[in-house]
């Protein structure tokens, strides 16, 4: 381990030596970005191995590596480099979304539908109620509620609470892949977080419109909100059906070079999503789901290929996510951040235990199901950015606080979930 860390330091030193041999250039992706991307990958891999030695999930190592090299700490990988590498992150998100969709089996959903629905409904309700209540009761310490009261404060708190209901399909899938877990706890958690991903988009759009209207912004009426919601979902579903059909045709006629095919599909879908403004993650989850469950083709080769490519993809995603965290922005609010993380965790714990018991789930699901619902990552960060962009007055402080909460959940969640999987006896890869 020390040897690898020394090599990394020598590489960074070498980069400093080479610095004067080229004048700065602009335009295309900066060659420096490429070099630093390589350093990021190697550091993430090293920290992942270190995390593994410390018996915590590797993805935590990837996150810490990104954080350590990113603008918040060492600044070796500056923000501009992360912008340059945005396409790599989209590729990672896309590949994992297809895999996540394909992992969602219709038979499992039928068999575990009741458990998944119960836990999901209770989790959403408990987190919303607990976070709204806490936020309103402690409004004097909440930066984005400064000067707001009455119904606007309620709707803003609702919007904030919706962002805290978000789980992380990426973290869940990464941990399940790392642990080789395929038991009831793994399947239930994956089902809940993936379905929650759809639900949260609807909730977010609705609560955003309400908050916007209550703050006096240009808001649409209820029918328009509903129409917009349905259109957003419909676009993603339609695109998912088209992409799923394309994948099925390919698996039927060609069946070769599946890694290349998956990469091309993700890039093409990302291009289309950018042009047509639909949600990449949801579209590809639907596409993966359709290929696995509806299309008259064998999806195993594709799923197997994606599994093989999963670890490098996770390294890229989590290292970049870690590098994008701006720790210094929320460090001043740490008591509020810690308080809200605890409130959210208690709400998730209670809903998980109650939901499992009411729906008659297996004992491990009832006892440890909640652990898989704690992690948060990309989707929640994306929503926080949307709020900051569109409602700058309250959005920026809300984003700062949300990012702090996500960072803590990102750190604690994987450890808890890994422990839950171990206790449930579902870890097959040590």
């Amino acid at each position, binding site marked *: 381990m020390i*040897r*690898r860390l*020394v*090599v*990394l330091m*020598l*590489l960074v030193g*070498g*980069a400093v030596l*080479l*610095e*004067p*041999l*080229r*004048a700065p*250039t602009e335009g*295309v*992706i900066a*060659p420096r*970005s*490429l*070099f*630093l*991307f*390589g*350093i990021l*990958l*190697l550091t*993430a*891999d090293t920290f992942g*191995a270190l995390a593994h030695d410390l018996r915590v999930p590797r993805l935590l190592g990837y996150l810490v590596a990104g954080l350590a090299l990113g603008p918040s700490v060492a600044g070796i990988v500056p923000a501009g480099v992360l912008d340059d*590498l*945005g*396409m*790599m992150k989209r*590729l990672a998100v896309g590949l994992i979304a297809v895999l996540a969709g394909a992992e969602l089996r219709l038979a499992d959903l039928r068999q575990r539908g009741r458990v998944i629905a119960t836990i999901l409904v209770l989790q959403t309700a408990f987190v919303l109620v607990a976070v709204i209540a806490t936020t309103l009761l402690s409004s004097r310490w909440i930066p984005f509620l400064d000067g707001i009261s009455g119904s606007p404060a309620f709707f803003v708190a609702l919007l904030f609470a919706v962002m805290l209901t978000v789980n992380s399909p990426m973290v869940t899938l990464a941990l399940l892949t790392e642990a080789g877990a395929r038991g009831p706890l793994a399947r239930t958690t994956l089902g809940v977080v993936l379905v929650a991903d759809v639900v949260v988009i609807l909730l977010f759009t609705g609560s955003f419109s309400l908050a916007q209207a209550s703050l006096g912004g240009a808001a649409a009426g209820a029918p328009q909100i509903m129409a917009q919601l349905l259109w957003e979902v419909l*676009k993603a579903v339609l*695109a998912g059906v*088209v*992409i799923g059909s*394309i994948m099925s*045709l*390919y698996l039927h*006629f*060609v069946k070769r*070079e599946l*890694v*290349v095919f998956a*990469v*091309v599909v993700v*890039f*093409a879908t990302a*291009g*289309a999503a950018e*042009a*047509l403004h639909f949600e990449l993650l949801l579209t590809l989850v639907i596409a993966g789901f359709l290929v696995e469950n509806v299309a008259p083709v064998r999806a195993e080769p594709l799923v197997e290929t994606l599994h*093989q490519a999963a*670890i*490098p993809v996770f*390294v890229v995603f989590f290292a970049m996510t870690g590098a994008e965290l701006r720790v210094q922005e929320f460090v001043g609010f740490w008591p509020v951040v810690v308080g809200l993380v605890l409130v959210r965790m208690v709400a998730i714990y209670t809903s998980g235990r109650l939901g499992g018991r009411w729906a008659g789930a297996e004992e491990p699901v009832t006892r440890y199901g909640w652990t898989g619902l704690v992690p948060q990552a990309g989707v929640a960060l994306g929503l926080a950015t949307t709020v900051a962009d569109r409602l700058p007055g309250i959005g920026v402080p809300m984003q700062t606080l949300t990012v702090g909460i996500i960072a803590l959940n990102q750190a604690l969640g994987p450890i808890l979930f890994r422990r839950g999987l171990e206790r449930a006896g579902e870890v097959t890869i040590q």
Partner: protein
Amino acid sequence: MQTTLAALAVITVGYILAYLVFDRLRDRFGYVGGAEYVFIGFLLGPRITGLLGAEQVQDLTPIVSLALGWLGMLLGTYFRLPTMATIEASHLRIAFSEALITFGCALGALLALFHSLLGYPWPEATVQAVTLAAVATLSSSAAIDAVSRKAGQVAPIFPVLQLTARIDALVGVAAFGLLLAVFHLGQVSLEVRPPTATEWAVINLAVGVASGVLFHLFLGPRGHLHEVEGNSRLFVALAGAIVVASGASYYLNLSPIFTNLVLGFILANSGSAHRDVTRLLLNTERPVYLALLIFAGAAWSPSSPELLFVAPLFVLVRLGARFLGGWTAGAVIAPPELRTPKLGRALLAQGGIAVALAVNYTQVRPDLNADVILTATLVSVLLFDIVASREIGQVVGRTTSSSGLERKEEHVAEPLRQ
């Protein structure tokens, strides 16, 4: 919305049709290329559907650099010294003479084309001519391996062909790497004296050597990483190493393929991780090559009228140089038992490194006929890939009829690999 989704559907149907056509070629001629991937890249790119716009094509640079470096590193791992020491001297003589004569002939003809016919000044003509001569010299062992596998039996000439293909690639990549160092483009910081051409060449080599030594240390001297953590971890470490080395080369406007060739050479000759590294690189060679073809298709934007005759002329030049180099090496230099006057016909396939060189050229010298170089390379690669297997079969058929067949088990081992 409908337009974009329709474009996706058109691309899919177009690709599947192209695949089926080329699949027939695979069955009939043993075709090993990937023309359909260039086609899908072109369809996706800014010229046709624009699903991958010019900016997004640029955003793919990390993947492309990974692909370029990957192929360079794989080439480097072929040259493992303990294995090379067992190769017969006559084989090496044939391989090097074939590669150098082919390169020299192609260079002469292309210099005449660019300087005398098209009127470019010497420096610009030299840059283009050396690049295309390097591309012309390259030959791929994939088709040779495929024919060897299909035949189940091997002629004595097979190891020579495989060695020659690798030496061709070595000469081509080294020439291109040297070209980018000698005709270096880009300014250095004001505090330092601009390095001379020789210094750039040394820097180019030094980046590769330093990367090789560092990643030898990073991977561990006893292949520790692979045994304990599996292929995926090794993949991440290798990808990181290649991206770092490629990034350093890009930063200095040098060739990442050459840098990674040196890196691969050092990894192959140090420690015991070389087997895992080589196996992983080989397993992923085809997806990497195809990804490169897709990118080449997406980045391909033919517009210059010179394309109309440079590409066909380049194909003819390559054919002539290959035949001449093959004849000299196979008929004049080869010992009687390996005499193969039509050696060049068995070395027509170009493969991934050729596309890699052309793509690298478009990134480093976008100002100097990048389209012409890319088009000529793609046309040549796709065309020769179609006929390569049949030509190898005919050459080997002739050789085996005169020398007799030997069992595959005795000779099938690739000459430079343990």
